[in-house]
């Protein structure tokens, strides 16, 4: 009698490369390849699948950021370059995700400054980057073109494309060979549809990361968790249009009631717990990039991922 698990999957999660080193025409110290999984998350026999990447989120106008993080990180938050450097050297992130929140300002038009910010951040850290452009359809295409250009050769991950607005991001990604994040609201069919739309305009599968949308813990996570599991299983069952790695981006976490209104003495403890519980559960459901905003969440996730990779000697999962 054997007790091994046999699921009989036929599909494989596709891979996406993030960041380019000198050898590949970029300037990053490292480049990551995510995806490649052939079974349930964390059940691959080593060394075939890497741990999920931990992305630290920063922005270029901290007025739009949670006061919890502004207080914790200090003055550094007013310099995206310094902040990015800290993300790499002090906080220990794998990737830096830069939100260009400056573009949210009323009548924003200084597109050149966006390029400068990106260049400064690229100079300050050797980590691969995720760039979140404007949410403003009117300036979207200019912002993304500027970012695409400023990061040419770096294999950026550009975000975030949605069904209603994906063309300008896709154009920038195609023109400068970057990957893109494709977000749909917690629905496997919508995720698939968006991937097909992107492919139709020329974005290759190995340039897409799926964002199934992460509702915060207590505010929609019950849906996101299953959406992630379902996307992963469809991919393993052979649906190539869903066979891309996923990103977990629980952007509302620090603004929900439980976190925002926590006692001052507990507020970091609560914020970290909320990010950690969400991120780890999402990783168990199949997400391969986990985004956080609190520096202290990073080490906790990393240690847990390493331990989850330790399999009992005899285990075999197919």
């Amino acid at each position, binding site marked *: *009698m054997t*007790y*091994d*698990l046999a699921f009989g999957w036929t599909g494989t999660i596709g891979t996406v490369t993030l960041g380019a080193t000198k050898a590949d025409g970029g300037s990053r110290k490292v480049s990551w390849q995510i995806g490649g999984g052939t079974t*349930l998350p*964390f*059940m691959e026999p080593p060394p075939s699948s890497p741990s999920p990447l931990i992305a630290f989120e920063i922005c270029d106008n901290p007025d739009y950021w949670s006061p919890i993080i502004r207080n914790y990180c200090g003055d550094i938050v007013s310099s995206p370059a310094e902040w990015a450097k800290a993300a790499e050297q002090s906080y220990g992130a794998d990737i830096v995700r830069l939100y260009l929140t400056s573009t949210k300002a009323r009548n924003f038009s200084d597109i050149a400054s966006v390029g400068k910010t990106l260049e400064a951040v690229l100079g300050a850290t050797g980590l691969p980057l995720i760039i979140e452009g404007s949410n403003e359809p009117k300036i979207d295409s200019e912002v993304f073109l500027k970012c695409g250009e400023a990061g040419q050769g770096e294999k950026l991950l550009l975000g975030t494309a949605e069904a209603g607005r994906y063309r300008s991001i896709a154009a920038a990604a195609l023109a400068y060979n970057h990957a893109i994040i494709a977000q749909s*609201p917690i629905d496997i069919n919508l995720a698939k549809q968006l991937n097909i739309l992107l492919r139709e305009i020329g974005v290759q599968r190995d340039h897409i990361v799926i964002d199934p949308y992460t509702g915060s*813990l*207590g*505010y929609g*996570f*019950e*849906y996101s*968790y*299953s959406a992630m*599991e*379902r996307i992963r*299983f469809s991919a393993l069952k052979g649906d190539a249009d869903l066979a891309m790695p996923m990103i977990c981006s629980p952007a509302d976490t620090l603004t929900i*009631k*439980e976190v*925002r209104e*926590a*006692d001052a003495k*507990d507020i970091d*403890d*609560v*914020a*970290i*717990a*909320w990010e*950690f*519980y969400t991120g*780890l*559960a999402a990783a*168990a*459901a199949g997400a391969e990039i986990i985004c956080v905003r609190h520096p202290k969440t990073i080490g*906790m996730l990393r*240690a*847990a991922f390493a*331990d*989850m*990779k*330790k*399999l*009992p000697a*005899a*285990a075999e*999962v197919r």
Partner: protein
Amino acid sequence: MALKALDIYKLLPKKNCKECGDPTCLTFAMKLAGGKADVDLCPYLDDNAKSVLGASTRPPIRLVKVGVGERNFKVGEETVLYRHEKTFYHPPGIVFKVDDTQPDEEIAAITRRVRDDTLTRVGSELRFNGIAIENTSGSAERFAHAVSVVEQQQAHLPPVLITTDPAALSAALVHCGSYRPLLHAATSGNFKEMCSLAKLHGCPLVVRADTAEGLVRLVKDCTAEGIQDLVLDSAPENLGAFLVRSTQVRQLAITRAVPEFGYPVYLDCEKTGFQDAGLVLGISKYASVIVTRPLTPGPAKAALTLRQNIYTDPQKPIQMTPGLYRVGTPDKNAPVLMTVNFSLTFFTLQGYLETSRVPCFMLIVDTEGLSVLTAVAAGKLNEGLVRDTLKKFSVENEVTHRKLIIPGYAAPISGRVEEATGWKVLVGPRDAAEIGDYLHETWKKEAGA
């Protein structure tokens, strides 16, 4: 190999004596076929019928009850590996662990905390479930004493007694033997004594082995001793081992490939070396009894919330009955605030309204449990619905004004609502946290006008 109700009926005694709790043998057979009853409920089955029915009609994972009274919890009886296939039914009991070497006051304080702490979310009271006492001292007297300290708090919490020493266990059971404590653990070395204690006190028993073969053998040994209420501890030494073994147990249990795996799973987070990660993985990946050290406020709230999320059926959002609800004692001039019948939305808004201390009416419309933004996006929240709901609950008889405050996120439909209802529509803030300021300032001006 599930049997059909008629096949099962053929094996029953056909006495229709009702002792199983069902009116007839046939209705009992139907329940058995659906996995909703236990064969043991019929006292008149012959051995052959018992063995045939036992294997194929019991739920693939046995329901095990821990503790007695109001705070008991039941785990097991799960049917799927992925919650989207159906749902998960019995949330894990999360128990706080103390050592018997800790000072009495500490043990007492932790017990009272588990007794009293509650987190109210979406109208449910979320709590931790019990106290585990570990025989760290190695002394039977000290162990029994620590258990007596827990019991003295009159908390009536399900205890988990952690010791492999039957003498220590026996001494502890003097204090809580009749409360269905969970005994941890039977191993290949002590299972005979552990089983006889479990039998004597009618307690559920954890079996512990670090290989699949070892677990299966122990389950066979313990069931042969007559113990049915078992819980499985695969003794994971790290998180990876837990993930793999727990998935293995669940998958092979629900497919009935390995009936010996058909019991709830136990996880002591500390033994993996990762308390928070153990909780996250235990909750999402099939643990039914989770032992942890007492948690600080952040992880405590996050763990209870994650458990609530994972054990909520995503097909059925928790809903409120549509209607006109009162906050405080509103009079005829009080504001009327419209919102959706998604429980999370209702309770979030209600919480802020209570804090604002402005008596008011909440008009709950039926969006089939969708949140404001989701309902607007799906077209479920529309002017017809608002008009009909205002009529249905005769809001015009409750207030003399004709002003309706709608959520900020419902702004796109404000014009149409105004036309359809004849009420003046005021678009409130998007975030319910701002409703207090809004009522004190904007509404006051509006009401005075």
